[in-house]
């Protein structure tokens, strides 16, 4: 199990880099799909079958299809790199290192003693119980938020009468 985790972890990281570094939008989108699918494999290795499949259906199968569709509609070919600003050149790397250092520190401090336990209860039943008992309010608020976003999209897309 552990070698598989490292393989797919590495694939996810490489593909994530490729998302940023590619200059053709379609390649970026495809790399993002690879990231999402390898994360799904990691979930699967942790015993979270349901989460893994939902990850593929929702992100790779629905959201990314929309991304690819829009890229195709705009027929976006290769991007021309813009001149990087001077501030980004001098501040970018230090800020990046600081950010990653913070994440590493937080992860190490909070999770160093924990081990990912396979076969944890992550089936649809336990997730549903968690969502509708412990996190009912955030869950409902999120759905209201999505509803508002849908209405916004409809209003933006509607032709002026």
């Amino acid at each position: 199990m552990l070698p598989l985790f490292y393989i797919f972890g590495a694939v996810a990281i490489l593909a994530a880099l490729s998302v940023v570094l590619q200059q053709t939008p379609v390649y970026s989108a495809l790399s993002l799909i690879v990231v999402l699918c390898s994360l799904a494999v990691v979930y699967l290795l942790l015993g979270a079958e349901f989460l893994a499949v939902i990850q593929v259906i929702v992100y790779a199968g629905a959201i990314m299809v929309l991304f690819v569709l829009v890229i195709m509609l705009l027929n976006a070919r290769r991007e021309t790199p813009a001149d990087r600003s001077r501030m980004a050149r001098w501040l970018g790397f230090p800020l990046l290192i600081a950010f990653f250092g913070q994440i590493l520190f937080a992860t190490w401090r909070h999770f160093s003693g924990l081990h990912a336990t396979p076969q944890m209860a992550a089936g649809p039943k336990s997730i549903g119980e968690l969502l509708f008992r412990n996190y009912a309010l955030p869950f409902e608020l999120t759905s209201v938020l999505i509803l508002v976003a849908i209405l916004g999209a409809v209003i933006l897309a509607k032709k002026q009468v």
Partner: protein
Amino acid sequence: MGTSSEPLILTAIILAKVAVVLLVFLTSVAYAVWLERKVVAHIQSRWGPYLVGPHGLLQPVADGLKFLFKEDIEPREVDRLIYYLAPFVAFTMAFASIAVIPFGESITILGHKINFEITSLNVGLLFILAVTSLGVYGIALAGWSSNSKFPLFGGLRSSAQMISYELSLGLALVGVVLISGSLNLREIVDQQQGLWNIVRQPLGFLLYISAAIAETNRTPFDLPEAESELVGGFHTEYSSYKFAMFFIAEYANIFTVSCLATLMFFGGWHGPVFGPHLLRAFLPVLWFGLKVFCFVFAYIWIRGTLPRFRYDQLMSFGWKFLLPLALANVLITSFVVAWRAS
């Protein structure tokens, strides 16, 4: 238990299962093409393929060989990586879903219990939906990378169509999942032992079958490859074995949705079982195959009879008719299930 050869035997069993299932599946797909040409021909008062073998039975072999030996034409200025990747994506996704489809009970050979499926997932149903939802990339990317107008239109249409109908397809199956309380295909089938789900979920079945035809890009929803307006649709620029892969993928998808319809609504492999031990083991597989065959036949029948939708009709049918009905079906079913439970 505990002998050192045990894991070896288990691996051999799995490999054998994969080989057998793949072989049967590929052969059925090839002969589905023959069946389609024959049935549509008879609907139109023609003979169909008749020259290669008795009643043209060797036509699939001849076609397969022809595809392999045809010149592989690559159009100018295609996006090479994606252009070559797309048929493989479509093909792989079409075949991945058979891994979780159970087509019979189990059989015991030399002390080893062998289930009639390659692998059993607790979320088998969702796995199939996930894999089919990835299949759209093959078509969309083929259309985009060909660097040509008609394939691009075909690819765009198919992406839009598949996104729209996937929702109804998933929601139509939610009713069955609510009733059986499981996402495991084997459990869903076992739970239909007394009564098939078609009786409990007639609306769900009609919604599923309409959405499934659209999802597999078949007439009357075959807008992505409408010959009269888009030449060949997304695969216009493909030739040789790459075209064959798209072709096989399309028919494999027909089998997948037919298998799923059988499992979810028509009791899977359940049917009268009698006779000696071996017959008892294989009769369910026969029933399953027979039911799937009926669906494949119905698919061809529909293709031979119905004209194609207009594109805007297709979209409004999906969003304004199928989707609300599917939502209502989910709502009513969950009320009934909750009322029964309390």
